[in-house]
């Protein structure tokens, strides 16, 4: 319980640092404060917990990965819908969402440049490239079945974290991260939160998709439960407490 309390405290501090870094008065005044994905923050924290790198560097890795996640999430909020135009053009909120995403991206580059970590800049940039290539495939409905769609979702949602895992020398947990993130994303979708599946503009047969999800979530859940590494067990422990955890973090 004490450990959980410490973790929570540390995560709160990191979250405050990220918010402080991302703050820009005019953006914060006119667009909703960017969402720091709590589940992904927990994931990356856990990934780095037992990793043999200095604390300050760990902090930078968490901050920059989350800034990139925020940048991508913020750009996903930019509407395709012409109704968001005001009488004198694109609405202020839409314009600032474009710029906020760019701003968070530039901060990731700045923070890592300041510690001369070119390799990690490259790792995150590679992940961003792959994510955008997968996003456009989802957008153009380039999947033959739900399985392919879920594989694209894995790339979109998990690439930042799988790239980090490989970078810190934990390639064996990549598939577990992917399964975890998939479950996390699908749960979010089931609970009506905004996910990559909302980008699909032609009819996604929601009922059959959810039933497919329910069936297919069992398998990765079993894999994670039965074969979970230390990382996964730890993550399970955190996730078990996640709701109260996230509630407290959000306050």
């Amino acid at each position, binding site marked *: 319980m004490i450990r959980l309390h410490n973790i929570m405290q540390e995560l709160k501090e990191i979250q405050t640092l990220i918010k402080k870094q991302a703050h820009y008065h005019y953006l914060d005044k006119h667009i909703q404060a960017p969402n720091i994905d709590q589940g992904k923050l927990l994931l990356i924290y856990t990934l780095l917990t037992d990793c043999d790198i200095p604390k300050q560097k760990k902090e930078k890795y968490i901050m920059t990965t989350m800034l990139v996640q925020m940048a*991508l999430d913020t750009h996903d909020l930019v509407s395709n819908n012409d109704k968001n135009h005001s009488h004198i053009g*694109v609405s202020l909120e839409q314009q600032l969402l474009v710029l906020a995403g760019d701003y968070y991206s530039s901060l990731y580059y700045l923070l890592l*440049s300041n510690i001369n970590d070119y390799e990690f800049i490259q790792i995150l940039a590679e992940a961003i490239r792959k994510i955008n*290539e997968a996003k456009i495939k989802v957008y153009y409905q380039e999947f033959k079945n739900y399985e392919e769609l879920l594989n694209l979702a894995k790339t979109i949602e998990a690439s930042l974290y799988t790239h980090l895992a490989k970078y810190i020398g934990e390639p064996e947990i990549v598939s577990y991260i992917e399964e975890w993130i998939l479950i996390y994303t699908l749960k979010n979708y089931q609970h009506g939160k905004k996910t990559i599946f909302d980008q699909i503009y032609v009819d996604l047969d929601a009922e059959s998709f959810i039933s497919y999800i329910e069936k297919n979530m069992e398998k990765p859940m079993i894999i994670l439960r039965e074969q979970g590494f230390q990382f996964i067990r730890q993550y399970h422990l955190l996730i078990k407490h996640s709701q109260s955890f996230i509630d407290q973090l959000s306050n």
Partner: protein
Amino acid sequence: MKLAKTYSYLKKELQIIEKALGSVIQSEHPVLRNASTQLLKAGGKRIRPVFVLLTGKLGDFRMEEIKTIAVSLELIHMATLVHDDVIDDAELRRGKPTIKHQYDNRVAMYTGDYMLARALENITSIKMPEIHQCLSKALVDVCIGEVEQIKYKYNWEQNLRIYLRRIKRKTALLIATSCKLGAISAGLDASDVRKLYKYGYYIGMSYQIIDDILDFTSTEKQLGKPAGSDLRQGNITLPVLFAIKEPIFFQEIIHIFNHPNEITDEKINALIDMIKDSGAIEKSYQISNQYLQKALNIIKDIPDSVPKQTLENIAHYIGKRRF
């Protein structure tokens, strides 16, 4: 004389950079690939690569490194253009349909993010702290400049200082950074690197002021978009800042923009005529020329060479640019 003539001897190197640009944006996905290539083929003056090349030639010239820097700078510039077109809801850029217009906002957002990622993947093959610290700082400032541009839209009471700070971030910083990165790569000493950075800054300021003038004085054909586009979008540029000191113009512009639904081409054209008649264009050219003079002064102590002569010629050319 065309600007390109002043550096025609760089043709071969510019072709190498152009080819590298084309190959860096070869995405696995055809839409991202085509959208990026379309933007690349729309052209542009490639002024940033030119400055990287020229300053890189002032010392120990290393083409591979220079190519990497130039490609990344141009990609960053292009990525910001793709996103700018979403912000401005622009249909045309350099007379060609924008990615946002030809595809949609979503594709434009993905393309811009993809290009920025490619720029960073590319530049990180260079392991020089100064390069990344300078470029990343510039990138953050460019983003802040874009936000500030929106913040001051339709603000008719902004002052000259705000305008200058805005164009510094919008244009001058990336040109200054181009000069600095080329100079660092060439191994020039800190003092010359600083001078070349300032040269790029002054040139960038002058370049943007003239761009802002040309928005009123050029034709739609020359601009590739309707004249007065900046004003229509509420961007208050130097000629407007000068013209607005005239009470009659101030009242007229307030009156027109207080009824945004009733803005017509005729009303914008009338405002453009008033700006031209007010002497604002001439005053803006004067400010631009002051920056060019500073640009020429700051590099006068750098040893004479062909690339230095070209830097001077570019400054002279920019002063005479009329479209």
